[in-house]
């Protein structure tokens, strides 16, 4: 009951405070000379957002970077030792390799399959049904998906759907979870199952934006369907594909739940984020987990740079 009341209070109070803030700001600005007011207004309007960004995004990032140069308890400066530890351990390097696998294959499969489904169902009547089915797994949390697929991959034919199929053909059950390095692909497939719907929906929306006249013109000029797709559709879709790919790359870099639930890093499936969690919450190594976070951040920077540059180019074209 208390929780319901506080939830209602938050829902009502937060917008009230924000509206109140704007009214107060406008009241103050109204008393200032017009020239000054014009310069100040945007900043005052932005202030709450900037404050939240600063407190919840900028400050933690900087604090994490600082912390990564300190020891376990965060008291003594130890320079680059945490980074030396990260790059000097077989287990962390294995985690890094697995993340590379995730980035390459998760992104490849999700974008590839998403595009394929989007293009194919664009031409059929039951498009909505297919898209809904492919999109369904998106509604499940990664943890739940991990639990589901751990059961699907189970070695006991009485539990594991896949092994039930395999043993039905007379073969012996295949240990999907414990066979390195192929088990990584078993885990990545869970991500593919989850995210293909997301890629498909966005790419499909992009596809609808491709003008029909252009496609008609190309066909009239004698292009076959494959050429139309490669020369017309693909270049027009490129910005959308880039957006989807960026999102998936970031998903792949920070993948945690599926691995944590399905193997917890056993059988050579460790990933960086799982390692970061373990160092902080299990081993109490604040410095090391901060260093891992910084490595992750640095790995994501190039992806963000490429994206920001692309947005700028698009803005310039406009």
């Amino acid at each position, binding site marked *: 009951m208390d929780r319901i009341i506080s939830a209602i209070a938050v829902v009502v109070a937060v917008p009230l405070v924000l509206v109140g803030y704007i009214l107060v700001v406008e009241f103050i600005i109204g008393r200032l000379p017009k020239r000054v007011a014009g310069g100040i207004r945007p900043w005052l309007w932005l202030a709450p957002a900037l404050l939240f960004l600063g407190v919840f995004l900028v400050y933690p990032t900087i604090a994490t970077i600082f912390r990564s140069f300190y020891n376990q308890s965060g008291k003594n400066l130890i320079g680059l030792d945490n980074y030396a530890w990260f790059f000097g351990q077989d287990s962390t390097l294995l985690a890094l390799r697995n993340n590379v696998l995730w980035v390459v294959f998760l992104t490849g499969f999700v974008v590839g399959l998403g595009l394929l489904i989007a293009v194919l169902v664009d031409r059929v009547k039951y498009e909505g049904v297919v898209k809904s089915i492919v999109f369904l797994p998106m509604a499940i949390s990664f943890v739940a998906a991990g639990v589901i697929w751990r059961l699907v991959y189970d070695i006991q034919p009485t539990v594991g759907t896949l092994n039930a199929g395999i043993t039905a053909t007379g073969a012996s059950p295949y240990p999907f979870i414990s066979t390195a390095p192929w088990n990584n692909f078993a885990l990545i497939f869970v991500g593919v199952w989850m995210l293909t719907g997301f890629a498909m929906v966005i790419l499909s929306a992009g596809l609808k934006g491709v003008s029909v006249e252009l496609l008609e013109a190309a066909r009239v000029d004698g292009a076959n369907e494959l050429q139309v797709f490669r020369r017309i559709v693909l270049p027009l879709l490129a910005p959308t594909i880039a957006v989807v790919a960026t999102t998936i790359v970031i998903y792949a870099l920070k993948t945690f739940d599926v691995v944590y639930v399905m193997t917890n890093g056993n059988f050579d499936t460790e990933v960086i984020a799982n390692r970061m969690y373990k160092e902080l919450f299990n081993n109490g190594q604040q410095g090391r987990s901060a260093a891992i976070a910084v490595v992750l951040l640095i790995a*994501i920077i190039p992806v963000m740079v490429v994206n920001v540059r692309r947005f700028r180019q698009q803005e310039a074209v406009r």
Partner: protein
Amino acid sequence: MEQDSRRSARRLAALVASVAIIAAACSSSNNGGASASASTAASAASAPASSAAASESGSPAASASGSAAASGSAAASGSASAAAGGSAAGSLGAFQFDSGLGGSVSVVGSWAGAEQDSFLAMVKPWEDATGAKVNYTGSRDLQAQLTTGIASGNLPDLAGLPGPGLMKQWYTQGALKPLDDVIDVAAYAANTPGGLAEISKADDGKYVGIFTKISVKGLIFFNKKNWTETTPPATFDALNQTAQSKLTGDMKEWCVGVESGGASGWPGTDWIEDLLLRQSGPDVYTKWVKGQQTWTSPEVKQAWTAFGDVLKNSFGGPTYIVNTNFGKAANPMFASTPGCLFHHQANFMTDFFKNEAKATPDQYGMFQMPAINTQFQGVSTAGGDLFGMFNNTPQSVSLMKWLVSPQAQEIWVKRGGFIASNKNVPIESYPDEPSKQAAQIFTSAQGLKYDASDQMPGAMNDAFFKAVVSFAQDQSKLDSILTSLDSTQKDAYSS
């Protein structure tokens, strides 16, 4: 028109992308984001990575059988009527309550569901007699809740403790109060079998945590159809020899399964602990727990090799062992064509016999794992839930006295799923044959050692679990596994 829709589609895409990037950058560049998703994962996954104890002590929750529940309510009503006279009388004699106390005491514990009901039934007579109220909260993650509680000063009066390591740490920090003036510690030590009460002490010798519920480890279960010996073998060697003569067809000596979600490997750590304790004795065991005995030392390596022999003699082979959940591991023992003769586990395994293997108590028996080096006769391992006091109030002192008493513990014992730490609880009070046997083994144990992996630092514990899994999968890796455990040991104990 066309132009407009194209532009808005692009804008939408750009918007989606920027939101995604901000969200991603946010959750990958600071710990806050990771902790949020991690805690979701932890609460959804049934076995938290940090402690096997959680899955061990959590699992019997489902145990209270129909008959146990019935006898439990009978016990509760019986003691309620007795409480009217100011004391709970039974075969154990009267307990002197502090009547007219009033007030309340806050308690946080890991017990939920049926276990929570049993705990509340256990404190009911105390509430009735003293007029004080127990405010109990069950917590899935005691460690996180109490750690933040200590930092913020918002602590319960009494709480279950996640393990001996944190218990000592919190006492040193001044959060946990010593119990020497609260309960009769001499009586507590004498009533807790096998010297297990040693674990209750902090480094300065003060008692800071008491055992209530015990997990009896190092038990060997057998199917009565296949193992008909009336007396347990005197030594582990004798056990193996007799076993070899009883194996028929494809039957193996052992059933082992080490899968347990995020805590996979712990059944193997229990194996290695039991082997090491019986091979090399309590001193080496204690040094090993404290990080003063390297993993590559002959004593520790010997335990791993012995575990390797067990695995070679186990049902299903390496792939089966690492992929089989500990709860289902014993199923082949009860199959119509039995897959194995024995299963090594703690007393709570009987719940899984019932729920997973559909075995009834008359189908199986148990004995304590026999000695290996007869110089160390009678040693074994145990686990248990520790209880500590954060606020010294009259109510919490009074409740603490009640919780260690056999009168209180007998209430839960009768409800089922509970082995009492106090040996004065009569064996006849246990509701079924398996728990009677486990309690008998526990009360007559001589040298009990607390679960080693649960006492090791977090990083060591985690590495031990993982090492068991990779060893069970490929025994040829033993030397590299032990070397890497040595480097973890150097690292984990240094801080």
